[in-house]
């Protein structure tokens, strides 16, 4: 049983495990990607958490709490996966808090109405699933395993969002208008979640070669459009893009041009809620300091003294 090299492993579609030798660039890319993914999960708790106290029924409230709890769980799976690469969760959080690491731009948009909770579940989690399913086959074992758990849990998120919008779109004219407005505002930002177009995505080729990324940004975006257009018809809602139409020749839906200038601006920090999200995260972290300290003090006090200790 000879030791297999990193390149042999990748060529054989094998999985790289934490203590295997790996190129520095591979490790750095994974840390950056997994950390950004983890940060997105915990920042993603904010837009929806905003509606827990105002959910329209006890049923919706219980569902929304379970969903936001899942996002926290997903963040923790991912921080644990990142730590297998030799980094500390506390350091990663510090990098988020000081702006050196990013989170998904989608969470910088506000949730203005209850229908936005539906649009986030249907479109944002829908886009996330399209992005994440291929990551279950990522070449790095711990990341792939975390993604398997996450993908299983995400499908409930998407369905509950679809159900919210379906209920609203078949309700009063006011509810219907609210659902349409939420879809109008979230459609384009959801398409931006797949990242810049392929000819402007500098790291894609290397990530594909390393088996971290399995499909290009534009391929995944197309896949999302193809699955979402018929769902919008089932909801009896309109997607805010007059250019969407089936293309028989390509076997895909054509769609209009995404405004990647907006994506760049939001990533740079100029989205509608960037400052609010970061301020909230920092406050939550600082306000929780006494809990962390108390738990550590309690653990120290109750630790069994080592045998022979004075």
């Amino acid at each position: 049983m000879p030791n297999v090299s990193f390149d042999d492993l990748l060529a054989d579609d094998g999985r790289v495990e934490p203590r295997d030798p790996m190129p520095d660039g591979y490790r750095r890319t994974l840390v950056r990607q997994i950390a950004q993914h983890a940060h997105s999960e915990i920042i993603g708790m904010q837009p929806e958490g905003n509606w827990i106290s105002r959910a329209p029924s006890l049923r919706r409230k219980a569902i929304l709490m379970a969903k936001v709890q899942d996002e926290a769980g997903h963040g923790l799976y991912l921080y644990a996966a990142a730590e297998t690469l030799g980094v500390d969760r506390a350091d990663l959080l510090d990098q988020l808090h000081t702006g050196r690491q990013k989170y998904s731009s989608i969470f910088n948009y506000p949730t203005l109405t209850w229908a936005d909770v539906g649009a986030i579940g249907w479109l944002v989690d829908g886009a996330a699933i399209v992005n994440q399913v291929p990551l279950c086959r990522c070449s790095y074992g711990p990341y792939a395993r975390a993604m398997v758990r996450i993908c299983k849990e995400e499908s409930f998120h998407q369905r509950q969002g679809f159900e919210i919008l379906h209920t609203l779109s078949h309700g009063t004219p006011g509810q219907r208008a609210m659902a349409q407005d939420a879809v109008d505002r979230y459609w384009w930002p959801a398409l931006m979640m797949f990242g810049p177009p392929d000819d402007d995505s500098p790291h894609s080729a290397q990530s594909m070669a390393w088996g971290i990324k399995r499909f290009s940004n534009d391929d995944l975006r197309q896949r999302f459009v193809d699955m979402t257009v018929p769902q919008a018809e089932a909801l009896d809602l309109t997607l805010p893009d007059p250019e969407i139409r089936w293309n028989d020749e390509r076997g895909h839906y054509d769609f209009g041009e995404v405004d990647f200038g907006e994506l760049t601006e939001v990533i740079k920090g100029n989205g509608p809620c960037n400052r609010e999200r970061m301020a909230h995260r920092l406050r939550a972290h600082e306000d929780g300091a006494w809990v962390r300290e108390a738990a550590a003090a309690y653990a120290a006090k109750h630790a069994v003294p080592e045998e022979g200790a004075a």
Partner: protein
Amino acid sequence: MNDWPLWEVFVRSRRGLSHVHVGSLHAPDAELALRNARDLYTRRQEGISLWVVPSAQIVASDPGEREAFFDPADDKVYRHPTFYSVPEGVEHL
């Protein structure tokens, strides 16, 4: 103090199966590690029993020594039943 210590989490999904490693988490002590493991890894009835083990307590084989370490099994194909030839027609063997 940087962070709480790391714990490895093992879940028995049902009777008759062994505990399987599912991931890790940070917790200040064993009691909170168990509670956090319940909230993190069994939110959908994935388990009926949980183990948490301080990660620092796990002793692992060295991946760099893998070849030499597992070498003794390499040349002992006679440990497998398929090594032996059986005359045609002989059953239940």
